[in-house]
């Protein structure tokens, strides 16, 4: 039983991390219909920038996080205005090719600048074990779970409660009508993309303080994020959270009671089952679309 509780705790923590790192992907897909294959690379950039500002510039974690957020939001905005804009009305395939190309470009540029060595982000709190009965966690992990929850709530409120969020949803439902109603849709798209990029980068910096971050990290991150998004339903916030937790707990239980060597099989099985039985995911937002 003690063992089960520890596995469950591991799975919940890991699941929150998966949820956060999938949020940017689901947002960009849900609101913009862009399948962003450069998602893992945005995560990598967030992590490496986080390492740079905390280790090289010597800033504390929170100042660094603000700086990384600003830089990556600006970057996301520019990517949308300069690149995505050009393929916006051409269907989904050109967007896929564009983001695949972008991901290759970003990996290789990062490799030229920082090299291939793994780096760590200086964390905001200590890493000593915290013991709750049979469960061991660390302060840093609890802090990160808190941050994940905060980021998810903040993004949710932004989309549901603010003027910008309403404009985003309106543009997603019917771009033409939104334009007729006086919404500057180009700006809405750029803001959405910037928001998705920033969420990916924040998770990169946060998780970089718990694990390490390196240029080649993007592939694995994208893989898990796609599993979460396919399970939860493309574009659904609740879906990303539930999908993340399901994946995290399933992996922890599989690893705990069967074999950690085959743990990546869990994600693929989930994807296959979802595609067979609920091809639009657990929480599909498909019905909302006009």
């Amino acid at each position: 039983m003690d063992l089960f509780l520890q596995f469950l705790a591991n799975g919940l923590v890991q699941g929150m991390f998966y949820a956060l790192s999938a949020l940017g992907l689901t947002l960009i897909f849900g609101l913009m219909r862009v399948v962003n294959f450069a998602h893992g690379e945005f995560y990598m950039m967030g992590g490496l920038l986080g390492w740079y500002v905390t280790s090289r510039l010597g800033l504390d974690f929170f100042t660094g996080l603000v700086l990384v957020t600003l830089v990556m939001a600006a970057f996301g905005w520019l990517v949308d205005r300069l690149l995505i804009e050009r393929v916006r009305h051409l269907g989904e395939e050109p967007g896929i090719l564009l983001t695949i190309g972008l991901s290759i470009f970003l990996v290789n540029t990062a490799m030229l600048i920082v090299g291939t060595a793994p780096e760590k982000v200086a964390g905001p709190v200590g890493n000593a074990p915290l013991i709750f009965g049979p469960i061991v966690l660390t302060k840093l992990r609890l802090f990160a779970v808190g941050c994940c929850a905060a980021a998810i709530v903040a993004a949710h409120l932004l989309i549901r409660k603010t003027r910008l969020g309403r404009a985003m949803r309106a543009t997603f439902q019917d771009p033409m009508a939104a334009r007729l109603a006086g919404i500057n849709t180009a700006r809405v798209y750029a803001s959405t993309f910037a928001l998705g990029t920033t969420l990916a980068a924040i998770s990169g910096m946060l998780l970089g303080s718990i694990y390490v971050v390196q240029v080649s990290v993007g592939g694995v991150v994208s893989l898990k994020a796609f599993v979460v998004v396919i399970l939860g339903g493309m574009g659904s916030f609740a879906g990303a959270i539930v999908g993340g937790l399901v994946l995290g707990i399933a992996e922890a239980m599989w690893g705990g009671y069967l074999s950690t060597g085959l743990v990546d099989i869990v994600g693929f099985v989930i994807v296959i089952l979802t595609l067979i039985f609920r091809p639009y995911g657990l929480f599909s937002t498909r019905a909302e679309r006009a």
Partner: protein
Amino acid sequence: MQKLGLIKAMTAAGLLISASAFAQDTIKIGLIQPLTGSVAYNGQADVAGAKQAVDERNAKGGVLGKKVELVIEDGQCKPANSVNAAEKLIQRDKVVAMVGAFCSSATAAVIPVTEKYQMPLVTGVSSEASLTQKGYKHFFRATETDALLAHTFAKIIYNNLHLKKIAYIGVNDDWGRGGVAEFSKQMGALGASNAMTEYFDHGTTDFYTLLTKLKASGADGVFVAAETQDGSILVKQIKELGLNIKVFGVGSWATSDFISLAGPAAEGIYAAVPYSATMKTPKNEAFVKTYFARNKENPGKYGAAGYNSLNIMMEAIERAKSTDAAKITSALQKTDYEGPNGHFRFMPNGQAWGFNAVLVQIRNKVPEVVMMAPIDQPQ
């Protein structure tokens, strides 16, 4: 302005022509390493060592009176890419010999190509045992296999660390599984019981589940076969979970990167490695000094591997007195090379022996050599 551009272009063209004319007078050696992908970091270290070997040799006049030119290709540790790289090096670049291709699976795919062209191939890294057991004529391995390392160190570890119940954790590939299999066999023969055997995939970041099992297994020591990235996270999380257990590992553990990534969690860890920058031989001290000056960090296992394999190849070409592949191969068989980590000779099947491996313990951020032992000639 336009005129200036024209002059620039002409100068550039002139340079290109002279460069290619110059290239005719070099001896080309091909090097296939992962420069991108998940083990790029280790591949780059190998390349740094290889470049140092070539530059040192060229400064002394090169090989057969010509400069050596290193043609580097990215194999990404993937069999298909490595085979393409090998074909390109042979067909287009006309290299006379090759070194590579890091991952055992990639090297296993390259060997049939080099055998077809009868091209000599030395690897300084790929340790999967069966590579030298298939009767290849032109393939040489200038590093240890898991079995040789296990054979040399199992007894030392068992006696020094007083372990009775050991858990085994390895990365989920040929190398990790091979390392775990060999060490558990040797340790088992000495009387240590097996508490747990588990594997994880390359690039895994969260080991809590695995370590929860480790805690529950009641082992008093854990053997880990992992590279820098995975290994450093793993030992960090061992400390985070408050596990008090003796850790000994194989892989690139005795490096400054590993120690800085793992931080205080690295203290007290034992590692059985074929190379450590702290080995006290005159050859090694000179090698480390130059390597540090060039790369601003101390060499690890892979830097030394690149350095050794290129030196072995260049010495063989010099002794062959020719760039003829058959002559280089027979010169390689007579290798008698003194490297930073000892004396290399080859068995008839291409497996090296005689060089040293070390057991280090990380103390105060330095991998201190606990024990140095030569790899015996395999039976």
